[in-house]
């Protein structure tokens, strides 16, 4: 065995494994999209002109945008205390972030069902204290989907924002205070702008994750607010239309690739390699 071959023996197996199990099959899916049911780009034309599919794409973008804004706002609040609080506050925040993070997406979506359903915690409680007489419809609609997705994505937004807050130079803040800026002004004029790259990075991560969601919308949307990923699932397994499902997958992949390229360009995540 020559010296040159040795590195390839180490990183080769994983690359080969992913080529065979992921890359080549993805090319196969792309092939489906232009050959099923008949050869041509008909499925792509359908995917961008069918009013139903367009409305699902628009709904997906709307939900993802709302979820991204809510998650970022919530993550900023919790990351702030996690980074700058007293040791006790830091520990409490860390536990509140880690517990949901390690619990599966199914259990968390189910938790929202248990909370929001007609005989669930919120409706039972509101009826007991007499605010409402009939249960509110809080789940199996877009409201439930937005809550469930935001809940899932907050921890993912916290990590990049907290890392931006940690790497901020404390002396800049002290200088601002020393020159007479109020605490509020120091926060808005110095702290927020300096942590903005982290916010931007977190925003793109959350948006990309949200685009591909289908478990949470399927459980909390109850078939009424279908998002693009769930539509792909339905097209493959309920009304077998593999060509269209494959074409929508390729389109989704292209959108995600575009967003990630944007992130690499502007938010510049730190390289993992030294």
């Amino acid at each position, binding site marked *: 065995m020559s010296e040159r071959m040795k*590195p390839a023996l*180490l990183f080769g197996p994983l690359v080969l494994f992913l080529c065979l199990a992921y890359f080549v*099959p*993805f090319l196969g899916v792309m092939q489906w999209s232009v050959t099923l049911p008949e050869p041509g780009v008909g499925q792509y034309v359908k995917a961008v002109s069918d009013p139903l599919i367009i409305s699902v794409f628009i709904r997906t973008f709307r939900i993802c945008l709302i979820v991204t804004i809510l998650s970022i706002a919530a993550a900023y609040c919790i990351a*702030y205390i996690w980074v700058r609080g007293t040791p006790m*506050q830091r520990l409490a925040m860390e536990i509140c972030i880690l517990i*949901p993070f390690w619990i599966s997406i199914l259990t968390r979506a189910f938790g929202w069902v248990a909370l929001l359903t007609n005989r669930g915690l919120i409706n039972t409680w509101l009826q007991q204290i007499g605010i409402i007489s009939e249960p509110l419809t809080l789940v199996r609609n877009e409201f439930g989907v937005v809550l469930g997705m935001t809940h899932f994505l907050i921890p993912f937004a916290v990590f990049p924002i907290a890392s931006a807050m940690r790497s901020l130079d404390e002396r800049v803040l002290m200088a601002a205070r020393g020159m007479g800026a109020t605490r509020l002004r120091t926060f808005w004029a110095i702290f927020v702008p300096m942590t903005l790259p982290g916010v931007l990075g977190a925003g793109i991560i959350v948006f*990309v994750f949200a685009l591909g969601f289908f*478990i949470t919308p399927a459980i909390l949307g109850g078939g009424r607010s279908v998002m693009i990923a769930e539509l792909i699932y339905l097209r493959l397994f309920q009304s077998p239309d593999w060509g269209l499902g494959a074409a929508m*997958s390729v389109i989704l992949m292209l959108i995600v690739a575009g967003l990630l390229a944007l992130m690499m360009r502007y938010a510049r995540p730190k390289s993992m390699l030294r």
Partner: protein
Amino acid sequence: MSKPTPVAVILASLVALFLLLPLIAVIPVSFTPTRFLAMPSGEWSLRHYQALLDNPAWLQSIWLSIRIGILSSVISTTLALMFSLGIWMFRPWFANILLGFVLLPMVAPPVVSAITLYFFLIGLSKVNDLVGYDTWIGVAVAHAVMIAPFAVVLITVALSQVDRRIDLAARGFGAGIRTRIFKVILPNIRFGILTALFLSFVLSWEEIGVTLFVTSVNAITLPRMMWMGLRDNIDPAIAAISVVLIAIVIAVILAKTVVTAMLSRKG
């Protein structure tokens, strides 16, 4: 800036409450005496916990998920370890391209990975019965694809903290590649490898997106079993199993917090 203001603390506490609320809501629901999902009114019952033990399908799906988790975490961690070692030791000029390629399954939308792995496994099913669509080994292989990028990230981060000079010293004294890996590098990143194994197992244990696409009636993992109970008429047994899963996570996190606190006090 000094201590956070009360407003900031209140806002963060509200978010923390929002994060914990759905997990808390599951607890009372799991003790309902009714056959449908409801808050228990007055009487509490353990019947849904009993149902978990009585129905062999639950225990079978747990055992299946454990087997799949072990196989897929071993496959993905081994491949990821070799890959990361190769990149770290030899630093080829195309390292970034390779890294981008192996991280693909992590950044691609889960539904796209799912349809891709579905394509892969039905292809394999045509040539053998052991590894393919709706078999437990097939599911483990699909999970390994999804999990490998996470293992690569963890091990690469662990390697980035190793002092290169100890490897150079070993090499200078004439150690071969095998000695460098097993006697010098691996002992230094053993904690990172264990973390990767553990995270891989957890990710496989709770994987549902891909599993939904590559299984139908035979390979029913625990998440797949929960999914079936969640779709139409929600079975309160889901609440009981959720409470069990949440309790495990809380116990592990609290144990880790206590151990970390004790270690830091000692050191």
